[in-house]
C-alpha cells in the first residue's frame, strides 16, 4: 500500500495498547488488512497478536480461494461482481474471525484439530470404504468439528487446506442441513479447478465428507452409500461423540493437575487439545483456559520454537512474515522447553523432534514438578493412542 513505489514494503504496525495492524498483498491483486483494536491492553501480548493476525490473513485469503477459486481473485475484471461473489465466503470468514467454537486451535497452529476416537480401527475402515465407494480418495469423519479419522490422502492435503476444510465443514454443519454438495477449490492442491465436497450428517455432531469429482451425485451417495457404511457403526459413533471436547479417549488418564493441554504432532501436523472442566474458583475459567492456551502457544512459538514451514508461504512472501519471527533465530543454542508462571496459572511447553506439548496447570503445582508432569503427560498420551 504505502511506499511500494519507493521499494519499501510495510508489513505491520503496533500501537501502545496492543493495537496491531497487519498488511498483506496476495497475488498482486488483493490486499488484506487486519486490524486489532487492542481491546485487551495487555501491552506485551500484542506481539503474539501479530502472529494470529498473520495467520488470519492467510486463512482469509485461502478461504476466499477455497470458495471462489484463484482465477477470479487474481484477475479481477469487475470489482462489483467480485464483491457480490465474495459474500458467499463471508460465513466462513466470520467463523475464522469469531472463533465461536471453543477449542479450535487449527486456525492458529495450522495443524488439524483432531479427536482421538476410542476405537479408531473400525471408523478408519468405514471411512476408507465409504470414500472408495464414492469414487474418491479423500474422505474424513468429523466429530464435534474435529477430525476423528480420515483417509491417507486426506492427510496428504496441505495442512492449511485440512484446517480450512474443517472450518468449512463446521460452518456447513452449523447451517443445520443434513447434507450438502459444495464446490471447493483447494488453495494449494487445485486453486483453479473446483472439486465437490459432499457432506452428510450422520448424527448431530458427527459428519462425514468426501472430496470427489463429478460423480456420484449427492442424492445417490446419500441414499445408497451413507446408510450402507454408517448405520452399522451408529453405536461406535455415539461412543465417539461421548469423548466430547476432551478429544482423548477414556483410556488416556491425564494427571489431575493438568488444566489444559495442546499436543501437536509435528510430523503429521495434527493436534489434540483439551481443557478440563473445573468448578474450582482458584483456577481460570474454561474460556480463559482456551485463551491462555492460545496465548501461550503464540508466546512460545514466536519467541523460541520457530514455526514449522507452512506451505502457504511462497518464498517471495516469506520475508513478509518474518517481522514476528526476528527473535527465535537469535539463539545460538536450541530451546527445548520453557515455562511461564503467571498470576493465574503455570504454563509449560516441551518440544521433542516429533511433538510439541503445551500444558496449563494450576498454581498449586510446584514449579519444579512441571517438567515431570509434562513428560508424563506426553508419554501417557502417546503410549495410549499412538498419536
Amino acid at each position, binding site marked *: 500500500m*504505502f511506499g511500494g513505489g519507493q521499494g*519499501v514494503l510495510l508489513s505491520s504496525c503496533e500501537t501502545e495498547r496492543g493495537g496491531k495492524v497487519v498488511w498483506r498483498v496476495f497475488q498482486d491483486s488483493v490486499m488484506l488488512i487486519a486490524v486489532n*483494536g487492542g481491546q485487551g491492553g495487555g501491552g506485551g501480548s500484542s506481539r503474539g497478536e501479530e502472529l494470529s493476525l498473520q495467520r488470519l490473513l492467510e486463512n482469509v485469503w485461502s478461504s476466499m480461494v477455497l470458495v471462489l477459486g484463484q482465477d477470479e481473485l487474481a484477475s479481477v475484471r469487475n470489482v462489483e461482481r467480485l464483491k457480490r461473489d465474495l459474500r458467499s465466503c463471508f460465513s466462513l470468514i466470520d467463523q475464522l474471525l469469531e472463533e465461536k467454537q471453543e477449542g479450535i486451535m487449527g486456525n492458529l497452529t495450522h495443524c488439524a484439530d483432531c479427536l482421538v476416537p476410542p476405537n479408531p480401527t473400525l471408523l478408519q475402515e468405514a471411512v476408507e470404504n465409504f470414500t472408495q465407494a464414492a469414487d474418491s480418495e479423500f474422505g474424513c469423519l468429523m466429530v464435534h468439528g474435529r477430525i476423528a479419522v480420515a483417509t491417507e490422502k486426506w492427510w496428504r492435503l496441505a495442512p492449511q487446506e485440512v484446517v480450512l476444510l474443517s472450518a468449512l465443514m463446521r460452518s456447513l454443519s452449523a447451517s443445520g442441513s443434513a447434507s450438502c454438495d459444495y464446490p471447493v477449490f483447494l488453495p494449494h492442491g487445485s486453486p483453479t479447478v473446483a472439486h465437490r465436497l459432499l457432506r452428510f450428517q450422520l448424527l448431530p455432531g458427527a459428519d462425514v465428507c468426501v472430496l470427489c469429482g463429478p460423480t456420484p451425485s449427492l442424492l445417490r451417495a446419500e441414499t445408497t452409500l451413507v446408510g450402507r457404511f454408517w448405520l452399522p457403526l451408529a453405536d461406535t459413533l455415539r461412543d465417539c461423540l461421548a469423548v466430547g471436547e476432551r478429544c482423548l479417549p477414556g483410556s488416556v488418564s491425564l494427571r489431575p493437575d493438568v488444566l489444559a493441554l495442546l499436543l501437536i504432532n509435528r510430523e503429521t501436523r495434527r493436534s489434540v487439545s483439551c481443557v478440563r472442566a473445573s468448578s474450582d474458583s482458584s483456577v481460570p475459567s474454561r474460556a480463559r483456559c482456551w485463551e491462555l492456551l492460545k496465548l501461550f502457544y503464540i508466546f512460545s512459538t514466536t519467541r523460541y520454537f520457530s514455526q514449522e514451514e507452512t506451505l502457504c508461504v511462497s518464498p517471495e512472501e516469506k520475508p513478509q512474515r518474518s517481522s514476528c519471527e526476528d527473535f527465535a533465530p537469535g539463539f545460538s543454542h536450541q530451546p527445548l522447553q520453557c515455562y511461564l508462571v*503467571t498470576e493465574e496459572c503455570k504454563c509449560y511447553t516441551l518440544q521433542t523432534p516429533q511433538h510439541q506439548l503445551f500444558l496449563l496447570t494450576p498454581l498449586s503445582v510446584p514449579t519444579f514438578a512441571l517438567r515431570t508432569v509434562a513428560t508424563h503427560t506426553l508419554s501417557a498420551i502417546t503410549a495410549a493412542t499412538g498419536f
Partner: protein
Amino acid sequence: MASTNVRGGGMTVAVGGQTEDGEDYYSDNKSTSSSYSSSNYSDDLEPEWLDDIQKNGELFYLELSEGEEEAVLAQATSSQGVSTNHVRFSEKEAEIITEQKKQRCGSLAKGEPALKRLARILRRKRRPSQRRGGKDGGKDISSLTSAPASILKNQAGQRQGVMVQQQQLKEVCVYLNPKRLGGSSLPLSDRGGLLEALLGVVHHPSWSRGQGDSAAARREERLIVHGLVPNSPAIKCGQILIGDVLVAVDDVDVTTENIERVLSCIPGPTQVRLTLETVGPVEGISGDSGDAASVQRLKTTPPVSQLVRLLWGEDTAELQMSIGHIPHIVMYLSLKLDSSSPQEEQEILYQYPVSEASSQLKAVRGIFLTLCDMLENFTGGQIISSSLLLGKHLVHVGYWKESNNLLVIGLPAERVPLLYLQTVVGGVVRTLKVMYGSLDSAFCKADHAPRLDHFFCLFFQQLIQPSRLTDSSSAPPTDISGTLFLDGLPAVRWLTLPPEIKMEVDTVLSDFESSDFGEMSEDFFGLRRLYVILGSCLFYKAYLIANHLPKEDLLDVCLYCQHYCLLPLASEQRVGQLVIWREVFPQHRAQQRAPGYSQPHGRHFLLIVGLRHFMQCVLLEAGGCASPALGSPGPDCVYVDQVKATLLQLEVLEAGIEERLNAPPTPCLSCADWFLPAATARDRLDGLASSSPVLSKLAGAVKGSSSGSRGRSLFGEKARRSSPQRSLSDSGSEGQADTGTGSGSSMAPALSPHSTPDSARKLGGRRDSLGSGGSDGSGGSGGVFKIPRMKHPNPFYLGTLKKILTERETEEMYNNMKLTSGAENTLFHYVMMETVQGIFIAPTHREVAQLSGSIHPQLIRNFHHCCLSIRAAFQQSLPPRGRRGTDRPQGSRGLGPVKEHGVLFQCKPENWTDQRKPAPTMTYWVIGRMLLEPVPQEFYVCFHDSVAEVPVEMAFRLSFGLAL
C-alpha cells in the same frame, strides 16, 4: 646514516617531535602547530581543558594515557608541549578556539563570579601541594615520577650495530576527508598546503637540499616525509614514517611539483592508497631488534581506539560510511504541516544520517506521519512501532510522539528485535531529555545539529557495529543481545566490595559531598555557594562501586555515560583525564509535583571527572539554596579540582578493588565446556604431559593444587578439577586452553566428564536451612534468608541444607558433604537486579574471562538473548511507566503478569565430525524471576540441567546472598 637517525626517531617524532630534526621543526613551526595542540598554552596555571569549553558552557574533554609505555613516551615528549591525544570536540576547530578565547575574556569582564577569580589566585599559590602542575596533571597522576625515560638514548644504544638498509616500497591506505578542511581557518597556502593539511605529511623542500646526502641532489623533487602532523590521517595509520618518500597517490606518481594538484582532485571523503619508499632493515640481521620491536609496536598498537576517536568527534564519516548500506535512520518530524507554503522537506526538523539506505527511509517519511495520525484515530493508541521491508532488510521503526512532533528511529531487525525496540527508543528519548530537557529543545535548535549528529553517530555505531568501537583484539566477540539487555536494564552494574573498602570509599565520597573544601570553599569567603552537590556516584572500570544519588538520578547519569561509552572507555583504556560538564535535566526532578513538597527549582549540572580507571559523576544544583546560575556557566575549576582530589584520594584503594576483581567468582561459576561429556580430560592432560614438558608442568600444577586443597585428595581418582583460582588462574586456565586446542577440532575442550569443577574456596558464611516445598513462583520470602555478612555461599550446593554452623564447621561439613552428596556446581551465569537501588550484579568480565572455553561465550550470548525475552515478558505485566496514557484498561487479557519464566536450551559442540557417535549434548536452563515483594528484584540465572529442583528454589530465595 642520517636517514637512519630520522627514521629511528620516527616514532618519537610521530608522537611528539623529540629528535634533533624534529626539534628544529617544531621550534620552527610553533605557530603552525599551535592549532593542533592546546597544551603549549603559555599560562600553565590554567587547567588544560579550559580551552575546550563550548560557548554554552559544556565541556567534553578526554585525554588518554595509553598504558605505561605510552605514558613514558608522553612524559618524554610532553616537554615539547605537544599532546597528541588531545582534540577538542567540535566541528570547526579553529573558529571555535578563537571565539572561546574571546568569550573567556568577555566573561571575565562581565562579572565572572568573584569567587572564581579568587579561587584561581588562591590556586596559584596552593598548586604545588594540591596538584602537581596543571598542564601535566594527567601524566603526573599516572605515577610516573621518575625522570623522563630517555628513549632516544636507548635507541641510540641499540643502533650501534651495523645496519644494512634496503629501499622498499610499501603501500599504505589512508582515509582522507577534504571536508574537514572546510572549517579550518589555517591558510593552506601558508605552508605545507594540502599535503600537510589533508594528509598530515610535513615536507620541507629546503631540507632535502641541506642534507648534503649524495643522493639528495637526485631526490630534490621527491617528497620526503619530514614530519607528521599530530592526529592527521598520516600519523593515525601508523605506517608512514619520517624519512619515507611519498612516491605515488593512488598510482599517480607525485613529486613536489604536482602533489598539491593531485590532492586537490580528491572530491570528498575517500580512501587513498599511498605508495611510499621506505628504508627497512634487511631481514635476518638481528642487530636491530629494538628497532624492529619499536616498529612493530608502532604498528600493532593503534594510536587510539575507534571509540576514542569517535568520542573526540573525528572520523565519524568513515565509520558512518561503513554502515551506510545498513538501513537506519533517526528523524524528527513535524506533524503540523504548513500547507500554505509548501516547501521541500520542511517537515523534517532533524535527520541523521545521510546515506543511501537512510535516504530510502527518508523518502517514505510520509508513511510514518500517516501511520501516526491514522492509527491514533483508528485504535485509540499511539503508534509505537512498525516493521517494513527495505529490499532484503527488515527494518523496525520505533516512534515517540511529543507534542506536535514525532521522533522516528529505524533500526535493522537483526540488531534490535522488535521485542526490545521500545526499550531502546525509550532509552534514547530519556537520554535526550536528560541532556536537553525535552525533545523539542534538543531537535529544534539549529546549533544542536552537529552535536546531535555526534550523538546519533555514537548511538548507531554502538548498535550496528559495536565491534569497530572496541578494537582491542582480546575482547570477546561482541554480544549485541548482551549489550541490549544489560544497557536496557534500568540499573547499573554494581561491584560488591569488601566492607572495609566500601566504607572507605563511601567516607571519601561523603567528605566530598559535604562540600567542605576548606579554604577553597565559598564559606571560607562568606559567599553563597555556587552549587549544591546533590550526590555523586563512583565507577571503577565500568563497575559502579559507590552511589550517593537517588535512583532516578543515577539512571539518568548512567544513561548519559552509557551513551557516550564512558564506562567501557574507563575499563579498557586508561583515561588520562576526563572532564565533562554540562547542564542536565534530571527526569524525576523535572516531573515531580508531589503535593506539599516541591523540589527547589534549580538548574542542574553534571560533572564527570575520570582519572585512570576511576570515574566520578557529580550532580550539582544551582539555584535552590545555592546561588542561581546565570547564562551557561562553564565548569568551575574548584569543583573539578575537588573531584580530582577525591579520585586521587581513592587511588590508594585501587589495589583492594583490583584484588576483589581478581578474586574467584562468588558465587562460584562453572564453565559450560566442563559439562560436555568427552574423553576424560584429565587422562588426556596427563597423556599430553608425558610428551610435552610445558604441559607436564601445567599438569603438575593442576595436580598439586587439587591435592593441596583441603580434602581434595579424596577426589584424586575422580579427576576433579578446581576452577581457576587466583593463585592458579594463569597456569590453570592456560592449561585448559592448551588442552582445548590440542584436542583438535573433533571435540570441545571438556575437562572432566560429568564432573565438576568446584572450587576449593572457603565457603564462608552461614547456611540457612530452607524449608522444603518452596513451590510456587511467588517467592515472597526473599528477604527472610538474607545472609548476615558479605560472604557469599554458593546456593547451588545441595549439601547446604544445614543449620547455622560456625564457619569452621561449615567448611568441614562442606567437604564432608561434598564427598557424600557429590554435589556439583552447576551455575553458569547470573544477573540480579535490585530495582529499588537501580543496580544489578553479574559476574565481572574477568570472572567470565577466566572461564575460557568455546561453548561458554556462546552460552552467555544465548543467556542474554533469552533474558531479552524474559524481561520483555516481565515488562508487559508491569504498568507502563513514562509513557502517555498510563491508565491501562483493567481487563486481564493477554497472558497476564508473568512472575517467572524459564527456558531449557540444548547445546552441542560445534564441528562435531565424528560420524559414528551422535554429538554429546548439554542442556541448561535460563530462568528469570521477578519478585515484587519485599523488594522488587529481578533474577536471571543460567545453570546446568542436572541441578536438583529444590536448590533452584533456594537460589532464588537466597538472592545469592548478595546483600548490599
